[in-house]
């Protein structure tokens, strides 16, 4: 079962089936999400229109964390079962995750300038997300430093597994330390402290980011598959 899934043919079949669906859903979510976020949702009573950057910032941060968790799980698959599909998905996912992290940091600091009066503070949440970016960079650098990708991916997977201890730190940083960054307003056990008129566009934007990630992941994985195929053919001929 594990290895029938790994056959490239099956991956191509499934991804070809899902691809149009993902594109349509992604465009729909981005369109309605951006419209509701930028036009119809009410401005914040304290922050005014500046809080609209949150519709970009919050999903990007969530995606950065999600992609890293995915990367850690895939790394486990790579190390334990040497799963070939996991390898390809992991190296396709890592740069996308790094981009989400960068987007989250940049939009956060743009928001911080009018709200906190500074682009950057050494706050626990900000620092741990910066460390996440460094982990992504280190993962990619280590993978690329090996002459043989099969070796590089395993070294990088070990690094990704250690880096996973950063995830709970990011999550807990706003509760464990006194930080400037506000604590979570949605993922609480009680009802979310955010009005539905703002929650709705946020959800749409998150879905849009998710579809965008899947789209890029499939494209990158296909490229990687084809690259490897070419490499094998060159080696044979």
């Amino acid at each position, binding site marked *: 079962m594990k290895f029938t899934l790994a056959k490239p043919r099956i991956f191509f079949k499934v991804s070809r089936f899902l691809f149009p669906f993902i594109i349509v859903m992604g465009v729909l979510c981005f369109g309605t999400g951006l419209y509701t976020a930028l036009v119809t949702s009410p401005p914040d009573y304290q922050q005014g229109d500046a809080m609209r950057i949150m519709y970009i910032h919050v999903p990007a941060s969530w995606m950065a964390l999600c992609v890293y968790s995915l990367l850690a799980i895939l790394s486990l698959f790579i*190390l334990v079962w040497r799963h070939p599909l996991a390898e390809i998905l992991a190296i396709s996912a890592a740069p996308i995750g790094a981009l989400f992290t960068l987007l989250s940091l940049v939009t956060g600091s743009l928001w911080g300038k009018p709200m906190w009066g500074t682009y950057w503070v050494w706050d626990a949440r900000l*620092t741990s997300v910066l*460390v996440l970016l*460094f*982990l992504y*960079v*280190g*993962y990619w*650098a*280590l993978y690329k*430093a*090996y*002459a043989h990708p099969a*070796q590089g991916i*395993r*070294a990088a997977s*070990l*690094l990704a*597994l*250690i*880096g996973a*201890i950063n995830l709970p730190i990011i999550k807990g940083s706003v509760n464990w330390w006194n930080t400037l960054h506000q604590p979570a307003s949605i993922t609480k056990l009680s009802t979310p402290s955010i009005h539905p008129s703002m929650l709705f566009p946020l959800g749409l934007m998150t879905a849009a980011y998710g579809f965008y990630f899947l789209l890029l992941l499939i494209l990158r994985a296909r490229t990687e598959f084809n690259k490897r195929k070419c490499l094998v053919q060159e080696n044979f001929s």
Partner: protein
Amino acid sequence: MILRELYNAYLHKGSLLSTLGFFSLSLFCTSFALGQSEVILKRSAPALIWILASLTTFFSTPHLLKREAEGGLLDEILLHPCLSSTYLVSKVIAEWVFVALPLICIILFFSPMFALASHELLSLCLTFLIGFPALSALGNLGSLLTLNTQGGGILLSLIILPLTLPLLIFGLSVMEMTQLGLDSSSSLSFLMGVSLFLSILGITIGSWALPLAVER
């Protein structure tokens, strides 16, 4: 095994000396560049010393490991019935003796330049000695991971430095407490916990990385 590591280090006095030379020279240069102001020197001394010491550790560990890998010792460790983590533990202990202790001596020697009081100096040395096993374990892990690459030391610092951040945070908070004259025992116990955790992590994952470093 520890004795063997120590003897090995003794055989390669040259690289050890260059490590210590690098550390003292960089310490001298930064303290000189910061200028005359005693307040600034005193304030920045712990951070500078910590960062330079961790960089020194990361530059020195790959050399020894590389030499042993070329000599075929790593293959032998893998074939040997004893755990490969034992090898890493002995390496960390030996490094504690022949890198950390000389570094402490250099810090003591250079302390007048930073205008540190004796109790501050004491807590600085203590935090460094506590934190060093984690630095060394992570450095060994990093050098195992980068053994077969061309990048070498720079790549190692790139992948390992983010992981040493907790050590830096708690080590420097101990120093801050001491400089303000407060009770630093809670930060110290945090530092011990973090150091222990990172050492175990580095050694465990390092023993997984050992087969990876051997194949080429």
